[in-house]
Every structure is written in structure tokens, then in C-alpha cells.
């Protein structure tokens, strides 16, 4: 059975989510306010579909089939008949709030909203809508087509039926799901953001250079990448905004973002997506 999946936001996560759902046989509509972002998204999906078999993904049955299933548009009205929405816009309440209010009036009553936020509590997002029972956290991991597990977050009002529907949808993508209760940062990011922030503090205090900090985690603990490369992959702006949410919600100074992190974000050094973060990246590669 194929659903119409709406993916809001054509950034790193939106690209991966669209790719994964399209590869699983669903009709996908990816929406972003920026046409250039949509063009980049199409190119990246095309590239990733071709090269991810190198990393164990199943090749396309027919070249181009995946991208053919993805409609890219700046028109949010195109998601009116969606069965499931995955929202992946900037981690800012000022962006998410008007978006959810609009989606709630636009989409069918039965449509489920999957919130792919980094740290904002799902219950808070659900309160923006008249369907809090059909709002669920869907925390996909990067790169989405390759990661086997999705963190599913139950909001205060999220129904068992919504959880079951979401888990089934994720299962049909070939992924497993772990259901957790609603809390800022959930399980993964609450721990991850703290760890990444401490690594940034170590760098700022000149305890060790960036390469050595990461090498210790990779070679001593078997992490696939170190905390600073991880921050670059997530996006330093996303890391900062997530820490801001954690600090505001828990009112615990342990979540205070490193000043180096703030400086880098202010300077436009956002990690992989901007070509420079703690490491440099070739944007054409």
C-alpha cells in the first residue's frame, strides 16, 4: 500500500526522508520556500540513490525511479491530500509555529503529522493544532536511507492508533522504531547535544585539537565519527538551537551552549552544509 507522504523542508533531513519514503514505494511531495534548495535536493537525491548501494542500500529497480516518485514544489497547498506529513524545517519556534497552524487547516483531518525536530517537545508542537492525537515525533537519523532505526516520540495526547500507524509506515520502509516518551531532546539528542557541546568546550579551552578529539572517540570507543565531525554533519546551527531549547526547558546550566559554537554559527560556519565547521568540506564532492 502506497501513501502520499508530504515532506516539509528540503534540507539535509528532508532530502533523506524523501529519498527513503520514495524508495519504499510511496508518493512524496517535498515542499520548501526556496526553489534553489529544491533543485539542490533533487541533485542530492539523484547522487545518493546512485551511490548508496556502495554502503549497502538496495539499488533502484530502474534508474531514476526514486526521484520520479518525488514532486518538488514551493506550493504548500500541494500537500492537502497527504496521509502523513514529516516536518523538517529550521529548528526555530518562529518558523515551526506558523507552519503547523497552516498545515492543520490545509491537511485532511485524518492526516498524521510527524515532527522531525531535534529537541522541541512534541506536546508543544501538537498544541498548535486541533489534532494533538495525530501528532507524533519522528526523529529520523542522518543519513536517513541508511540508518536502520527511527526514534518515535509519544506526545501527551498522541493516540495508540497514531503510534501504530507511524510504526507500520516506518516498518514498511525497512526500518525499526523505538518509542520513547516526550521530553526535550528525547533520548538521542538530549545525550548527543551535551556530548557534542562538551567536545566543543574542550576545543575552545585548547585541551586538544579537533582532529585529536575526534580520533579518540573513533579509535577508543568505536564511534563511526567523532563528536566534532558529528556536529558538522548535524549542522552547527541545529546543535546550537537544540541546546537553546534544552537550556530553556530544563533551566539547567549544563546545557549552556559553548561560546565557540555561538561564534561559529554567527560567522556562518555551519559545518558540512556550509563547507566549513570544525573541519573543511568540499561542497562539490
Amino acid at each position, binding site marked *: 500500500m502506497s501513501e502520499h507522504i508530504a515532506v516539509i523542508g528540503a534540507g539535509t533531513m528532508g532530502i533523506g526522508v524523501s529519498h527513503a519514503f520514495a524508495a519504499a514505494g510511496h508518493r512524496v511531495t517535498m515542499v520548501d520556500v526556496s526553489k534553489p534548495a529544491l533543485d539542490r535536493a533533487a541533485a542530492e537525491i539523484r*547522487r*545518493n540513490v546512485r*551511490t*548508496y*548501494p*556502495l*554502503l549497502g542500500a538496495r*539499488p533502484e529497480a530502474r534508474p531514476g525511479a526514486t526521484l520520479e516518485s518525488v514532486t518538488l514544489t514551493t506550493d504548500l497547498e500541494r500537500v492537502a491530500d497527504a496521509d502523513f506529513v514529516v516536518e523538517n524545517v529550521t529548528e526555530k519556534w518562529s518558523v515551526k509555529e506558523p507552519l503547523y497552524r497552516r498545515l492543520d487547516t490545509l491537511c485532511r483531518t485524518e492526516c498524521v503529522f510527524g515532527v522531525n525536530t531535534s529537541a522541541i517537545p512534541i506536546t508543544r508542537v501538537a498544541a498548535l493544532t486541533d489534532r494533538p492525537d495525530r501528532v507524533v515525533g519522528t526523529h529520523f537519523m542522518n*543519513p536517513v536511507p*541508511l540508518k536502520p532505526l527511527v526514534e518515535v516520540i509519544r506526545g501527551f495526547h498522541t493516540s495508540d492508533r497514531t503510534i501504530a500507524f507511524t510504526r507500520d509506515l516506518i516498518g514498511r520502509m525497512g526500518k525499526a522504531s523505538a518509542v520513547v516518551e516526550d521530553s526535550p531532546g528525547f533520548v538521542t539528542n538530549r545525550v548527543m547535544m551535551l556530548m557534542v557541546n562538551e567536545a566543543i568546550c574542550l576545543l575552545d579551552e585548547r585541551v586538544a585539537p579537533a*582532529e585529536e578529539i575526534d*580520533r579518540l572517540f*573513533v*579509535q577508543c570507543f568505536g564511534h*563511526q*565519527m567523532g563528536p566534532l*565531525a558529528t556536529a558538522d554533519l548535524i549542522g552547527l546551527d541545529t546543535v546550537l538551537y537544540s541546546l537553546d531549547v534544552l537550556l530553556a526547558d530544563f533551566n539547567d546550566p549544563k546545557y549552556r551552549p559553548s561560546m565557540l559554537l555561538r561564534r561559529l554559527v554567527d560567522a556562518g560556519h555551519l559545518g558540512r552544509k556550509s563547507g566549513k565547521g570544525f*573541519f573543511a568540506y*568540499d561542497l*562539490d*564532492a
Partner: protein
Amino acid sequence: MPDQLGVVRAFVQRHVGETPVDDDEDIFASGYVNSLFAVQVVMFVEQTFGIEVTGDDLDIRNFQSIAEIHRFVLNRGGERLAV
């Protein structure tokens, strides 16, 4: 004759950082790079040497060391070097 091995070495070393990498060292097993780097290597080989990487080529063993990448480029007759 362009120094293809030198170009491959420079590309890998640029992504690994300061730690010197031997030509035969498995850069993925060593933890110098993560699996996503394999995608970057494919793009590098295509854009630098004018090779189209298809189907059966997408085997990580073709890209897991400087020597293997160079061998792949030679076998596929890669000649063009991007200026």
C-alpha cells in the same frame, strides 16, 4: 603523464587530516574516514578522472585504500585530470 596516484593521495590525505596514510592502509577500517566518505570518493573519481562509476563498480573494496582507488582509476582507463 599526469600523476594520478599523487592526485588520489592528495585527495585522501586532505580528508583524513594530518595523520599520514599509507597507500595500502584501509582508510575505513582505520577510522580515518566514515562510510559517507565512500560517496565522496566516487564523486571525486568521476569528476577528476572522467570515469563513470556504475553498478558493479559500487563495491567499497574498490575505494578502501589509496592503492585500491588508484588501481580502479587505472583499470577504468581514467585519463582526464581536472585542472
